């Protein structure tokens, strides 16, 4: 299943964001951030303890099931008073959750996490970015491996000169997308597809911010 992959912000950054903020309500999420252990119930509790130890007042906390869904009436009712007492909401969800909550509650929000990418758990504890949602899908010619996402430079005509033993020039832990694409196409007997000179990419697929209105 596709997930929002997050990482906790560096401590100093969070301290700075919470500088001058005394009363805090913390929100976690039971879905993606629970899986990545960045904003599930245990992390929310640990955060509460850390903040209390540093002299902040935590008015309350909740781990909602799916933070990118609108908050249910039950949650706003049950925690309404604690939320009201806080000057700031510290949100331990991905940026989708932060924005959904910010749009519903009239409070300043501070994200406790950075949202890194939309990806998949490809092995236990390992997450990889799969699609950057560019709006002009070209993987029909690359054997189903996306060079826009998986190549650090988003190259569409083959590898740069930086490939080293099939790894990317920026990080030996990252596979070179073009080694993968080559191997895939070779296996399928379709290297002809890689030989075709691809035109410059079309960035007009869906100009950001994306918006789709369905007719009828």
């Amino acid at each position, binding site marked *: 299943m596709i997930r929002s992959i997050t990482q906790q912000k560096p401590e100093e950054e969070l301290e700075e964001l919470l500088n001058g903020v005394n009363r805090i309500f913390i929100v976690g999420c039971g879905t993606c951030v629970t899986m990545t252990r960045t904003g599930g119930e245990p992390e929310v509790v640990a955060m509460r303890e850390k903040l209390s130890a540093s002299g902040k007042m935590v008015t309350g906390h909740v781990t909602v099931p799916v933070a990118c869904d609108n908050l249910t009436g039950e949650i706003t009712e049950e925690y309404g008073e604690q939320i009201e007492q806080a000057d700031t909401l510290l949100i331990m969800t991905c940026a989708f959750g932060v924005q959904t909550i910010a749009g519903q509650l009239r409070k300043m929000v501070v994200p406790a996490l950075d949202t890194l990418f939309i990806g998949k758990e490809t092995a236990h504890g390992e997450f990889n970015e799969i699609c950057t949602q560019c709006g002009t899908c070209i993987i029909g010619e690359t054997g189903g491996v996306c060079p826009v996402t998986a190549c650090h*430079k988003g190259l569409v005509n083959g590898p740069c000169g930086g490939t080293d033993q099939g790894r990317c020039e920026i990080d030996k832990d990252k596979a070179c997308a073009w080694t993968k694409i080559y191997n895939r196409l070779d296996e399928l007997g379709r290297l002809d597809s890689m030989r075709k000179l691809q035109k410059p990419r079309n960035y007009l697929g869906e100009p950001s911010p994306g918006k789709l209105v369905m007719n009828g």
Partner: protein
Amino acid sequence: MVSSFKEALESGKFVVTCEVAPPKGINLEKTKHHIEFLKDKVDAMNLTDHQSSVMRYPSLGAAIMVKELGGEPILQMTCRDRNRLALQADLLCAASKGIHNVLCLTGDSVMLGDHKEAKGVFDLDSSQLVAAMRLLEKGKDLGGNELDGAPAFCAGAIVTPEANPIDPQLIKFEKKIDAGAEFIQTQAVYDMPKLKSFMDYAKQFPVKILAGIILLTSAPMARFMNKNIAGVNVPQELVDEMASAPKGRAMETGIEIAGRMIKQIHDENICDGVHIMAIGKEEVVPDIMSAAGLT
């Protein structure tokens, strides 16, 4: 002929190019000195474009200097820092200043340089940049619009003959030639048998190939390249040869090795020429050439 470099390529002579790095800052004295010192000794000189993603004086500015000083520039252009509008605009500017030789590169990641947090552009890739040059020559831009005055170029690109894996690299190499590359300057090669086998394959294509030679300045420098530069592989014998150089004489050994390789490439007719990268030691380029028996 669009440029004297192109003329040299087509004359069938053994072509020699070298590299000059623009300064970090606006003190142009050293660059000017290198250009004046080398301009009549080589067929053309490359001006590097924020090499290794380190911000410097622009390659276009330095290529204009070469032109003004009476030399023959090869403008290096990477796709890392400019989108297609800026790349085409700089190509027009270059041609209007009499700079016609352009080497197209993808460019290293910004993460490897001195502005690690910058945005890498890569709107075009190196093969598309070659194609864009050929299109501009026809009086059209990438948006399909007519130009008022079309430029002319001698288009070049690079290849890494020791890339690992090599096959995807060779497909890209062929695409650059299909897109219209007339010359290729290779990444540094030290292993002659490997260069020969690459050339056995590459000779079938209508393109001139200049073998890249990076001057070895010390054994640690050779080891550093082996460890950190993808596609550069200094064989152990050469590392040992550098290490056994008498104290203070490593540079001489490096010059001797470079000269020896160039001589072999020349005498055995392996490539159409060489591209000498002396990285900061430009003043020894003539010594390398004489060690190779070229002067």
